[in-house]
């Protein structure tokens, strides 16, 4: 990826990036392999499938869930997840019938990379960042998630090196599913808090 480009219609920003890239390579601070490796890792190894495994484990293993809520960093580490973009600490917040959690970063776009990968564009854009703290119920409603007024909404604005992930509610009708099947149900949006995990039909 670092070694090719997008052809003659390549936008100016892409050429600007190649200019900087070439200077850093010459100065011994970068290599095309480094770029390729980073892209490979975030395209293949690190993404919401990691968080989904964490959620599924918490659903089937009450003792793991207890550890996860007490020390998210250590508990996701048990499954091999952690590191860069995770800030220093992962805090997992649990959705219940009485509480719905939502994660945002109003000042930039902090996001729990080790468990969810790189954030989607909408998470980084002004509309979500501005509104999530001011009118979360309306934001959720636009995502198709109607949260009754009786349910408390907790918005986690990631202003420090703490990252937040939502532990969604386990849907009804999933009692017989195994951990891997459960993980397949868990979406990125549910772990940000803008969706529920859908019930099995």
């Amino acid at each position, binding site marked *: *990826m670092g*070694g090719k480009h*997008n*052809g003659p219609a390549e936008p100016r*920003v892409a*050429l600007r*990036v*190649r*200019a*900087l*890239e070439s*200077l*850093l*390579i*010459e*100065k011994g*601070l*970068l*290599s*095309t*392999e*480094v*770029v390729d490796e*980073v*892209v490979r*890792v*975030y395209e293949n190894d690190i*993404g919401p499938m990691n968080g989904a495994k964490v959620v599924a484990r918490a659903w089937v293993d009450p003792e793991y869930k207890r550890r996860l809520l007490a020390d998210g960093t250590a508990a996701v580490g048990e499954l091999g997840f*952690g*590191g*860069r*973009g995770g*800030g*220093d600490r992962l*805090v997992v917040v649990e959705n219940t019938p009485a509480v719905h959690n939502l994660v945002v970063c*109003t*000042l*930039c776009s902090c996001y729990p990379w*080790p468990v969810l*990968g*790189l954030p989607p*564009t*909408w998470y980084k854009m*002004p*509309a979500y*960042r*501005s*509104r999530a*703290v*001011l009118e979360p*119920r309306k934001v959720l409603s636009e995502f198709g998630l109607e949260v009754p*007024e*009786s*349910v*408390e*909404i907790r918005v986690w604005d990631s*202003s*420090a*090196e*703490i990252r937040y992930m939502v532990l969604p509610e386990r849907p009804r009708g999933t009692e017989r599913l195994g951990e891997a099947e459960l993980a397949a149900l868990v979406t990125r949006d549910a772990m940000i808090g803008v969706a529920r995990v859908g019930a099995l039909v």
Partner: protein
Amino acid sequence: MNGVHDLGGMQGFGPIEPEANEPVFHADWEGAVLAMNIAAMTQRLYNVDEFRHGVERMGAARYLATSYYEHWLASIETLLVEKGVVSRAELEARTAAFFADPDLPLPRRSDPALVARMREAIRKGAAASSEERPSARFRPGDRVVTRNMHPPGHTRLPRYARGRRGAIERVHGVFTVPDSHAHGRGRQPQPLYSVAFESRELWGAAAAPRERVYLDLWEPYLEPDGGSGDGRQA
């Protein structure tokens, strides 16, 4: 800095527009920007707080008109030039060369040690917490009021939560204060708290009930509630 990056509570940005089946990267250059940034921080050319403040300094109109990875590119350029890693002149000259011939190849260089270092950095992350343990002034349940402060530099106390009353939810530990770290004044670790604010405290009587916002705030951002407050005339 009260900049446009401080978006919490702003209005008029329209609906949220999720992209179906969004790819991890929309173009090759985005991945290259991500990799350059991780490589630069891994090699300690700048720290994450300097990086965030570099984005904040890019100019409000440009910030709003450009994408996430363009913000990153702007900050990387600013910092590498300021740190003397790259000169503005050589960057402009090299850019002109690529504009003139988009097919110019990138220099070939193999650096297995750097690749290994990057893997390790991605796996381990960077530490912002500290082993130091200054005693924390507040405990869970304590009522606090945030300072009404408007520093021209970097801060992580958003404007919407200044001069507001909340309650300590949790003590995270002791962490690097971004306000100093972004400006070459060292880590100056301080206790970091999760602080809960009622929506009505943040947004007034018209705010919906049963909504709370939680922020992670450093001790110097906070004062005990019940004091005269910062700049308030009792």
